[in-house]
């Protein structure tokens, strides 16, 4: 199971440039579905025929990740960049990235601390002040390896961490993609559409057209979500807690979950003795926002895997939460005729 996760987090896929992760997902789901299509936005949709006619079920995880785009190459061979998705510039200095399809290594540089004025040291760094160093001495040298418009993503390996945890890049939302793929091994009575969406991090774009095309009756979104159960944060701001099971959302900024679905998820979790938690915040948004309001409306709900430090090269996730999310999604699928 974590082999699949490892393959998924290793694939590059900044929003708008999901080719590598898309190819991998197509390979992984082909044996598990009856038909795999890619729509015009680049969403991957695996269709699994059901035995009960009438309803369509959509499972959704976004395959894109936050990243960077090269905007300019300076005379001295350094690269200027823009961010893709929400990225905290304060975490960037000295982080490694991979640029372009070739994966050219680079590092975010900043003026050395010895050279900074006292005032500079006291203010948070902004993306504008940073540059990417790929070891090139001149613009010509840099241009042989990268060009403006090339995408870049954080460069880090997935490692096992502590007891039963992993530390990795891109857990938001490759963890969701991996859980969705594993969940596909369970049978759904209805026609099932497994959607791996593009461009969630830049405005829930892929999900919008996927839902419009599929016309689902109900959709379950699988996300890697904020987990702030860490020092310096008061318990009321944890949002989720690591190791306490998949988090079921009542609502977030993008959607209010369908109450019947939430009650059903809780019932299935309790019946199968799967630990779960209710997400304790109203922040954030995800594909549910667009799917719920597609056409005449769709029943939606969200199950999230708690991940600390998302949108960084080193997110941390508990594999028990991951496995329990798979179990919960499978339980959801098996009995969704009740909805």
């Amino acid at each position: 199971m974590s082999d699949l996760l490892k393959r998924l987090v290793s694939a590059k896929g900044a929003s708008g440039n999901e080719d590598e992760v898309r190819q991998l997902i197509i390979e992984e789901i082909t044996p598990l579905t009856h038909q795999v299509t890619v729509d015009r936005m680049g969403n991957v949709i695996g269709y699994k025929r059901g035995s009960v006619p009438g309803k369509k079920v959509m499972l959704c995880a976004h395959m894109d990740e936050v990243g960077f785009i090269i905007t300019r190459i300076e005379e001295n061979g350094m690269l200027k960049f823009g961010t893709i998705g929400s990225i905290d510039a304060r975490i960037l200095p000295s982080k490694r990235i991979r640029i372009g399809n070739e994966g050219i290594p680079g590092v975010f540089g900043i003026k050395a601390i010895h050279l900074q004025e006292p005032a500079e040291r006291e203010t948070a760094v902004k993306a504008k002040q940073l540059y990417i160093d790929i070891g090139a001495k001149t613009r010509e040298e840099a241009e042989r390896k990268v060009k403006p418009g090339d995408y870049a993503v954080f460069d880090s390996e997935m490692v096992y961490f502590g007891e039963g945890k992993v530390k990795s890049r891109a857990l938001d939302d490759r963890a969701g993609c991996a859980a969705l793929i594993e969940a596909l091994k369970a049978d759904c009575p209805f026609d099932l559409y497994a959607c791996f969406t593009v461009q969630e991090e830049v405005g829930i774009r892929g999900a919008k057209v996927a839902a419009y095309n599929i016309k689902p009756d109900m959709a379950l979104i699988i996300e890697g979500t904020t987990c702030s159960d860490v020092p310096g944060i008061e318990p009321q701001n944890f949002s989720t807690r690591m190791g306490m099971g998949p988090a079921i959302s009542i609502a977030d900024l993008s959607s209010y979950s369908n109450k019947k679905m939430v009650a059903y998820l809780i019932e299935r979790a309790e019946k199968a003795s799967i630990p779960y938690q209710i997400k304790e915040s109203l922040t954030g948004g995800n594909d549910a926002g667009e799917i719920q309001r597609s056409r005449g409306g769709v029943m939606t709900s969200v199950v999230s895997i708690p991940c600390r430090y998302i949108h960084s090269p080193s997110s941390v996730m508990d594999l028990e939460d991951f496995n329990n999310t798979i179990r919960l999604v499978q339980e959801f699928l098996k009995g969704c005729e009740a909805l």
Partner: protein
Amino acid sequence: MRELLQKLAGVYGPSGNEEPIRDAIQKEIEDHVDEFYTDVMGNLIAVKKGKGGGKRVLLAAHMDQIGLMVTHIDDKGFLRFAALGGISVANSICRRVIFRNGITGVIGYETEVESWKDITLAKMYIDIGASGKEEAESQIKIGDVAVYHSPFSANNDKYMGGAMDDRAGCALLVETIKSLESTPNDLYFVFTTQEEVGLRGAKTSAYALEPDLGISVDVTITGDTPKAKPMAVSLGEGPAIKIKDASILAHPKVKELMVGTAKKHGIPYQLEILEFGGTDSGAIHLSRGGVPSGVLSIPCRYVHSDSETIDANDLKNGVKLLVKILEGEINF
């Protein structure tokens, strides 16, 4: 209409939790419409068929009200919350709230803050008088939503209370349904959900109903209080016909239809330009290939507080104007 408004304003129904108010509205209208149903988003849709040859008209008023969603229960039984819609610090300090199950509470704040300016919703909590976490959890759970709790009152032709936004609009539509005698148009009265969190119910219902024309009915702010921010809308000067807000530029023909009808029948009206905020028409006019849309607004002081205040005559004249619009032929 006082009785109807008081009844509707007193029913619980924050965004996403509109079941009680939907039931209340359904009871009011079920004997006066040809058909009604609830859709996936929870919108209540009531149909009144025309004699034929008319337009498909969507009339929308949102049922939901702003609320406070419980996000955390601490060891002492205090509830932390997040805003569901436009809850402000200023309008919340030491206000009373009520949950669906009748449990009431008061909104407190961490008094160690140095200045009132430092208070944010994250530093506030709901006190339901529980002696500890266990007692609190036996009554309230994470995800439960409270609404402002204040009595309805009336004097000087003014109605005051919580949830005038937009139960005043709902009451206006209910009264319109009851007052309509005959119409050439097919009328779809939609009592929408989740307006306060992003015009959500309106979006899906407009898609499903494919109207030729859309009018939403909602409250708007006024500029008629001491040292108010300039705004050419006052209580008691008539229902307001919207020119624009942040979500829509009213379709000129819909606006002309509304103004023309008011003039023809001698119904007082005022024109509204709202710099911030929006309402259901913002979603309706962008549905599918576009829907010509306008807004009939009820002037309201202290919007998004527990004491929203409207004028009885504006409400009555709003009904009169909407009935005349709908009873006539709509040509464009």
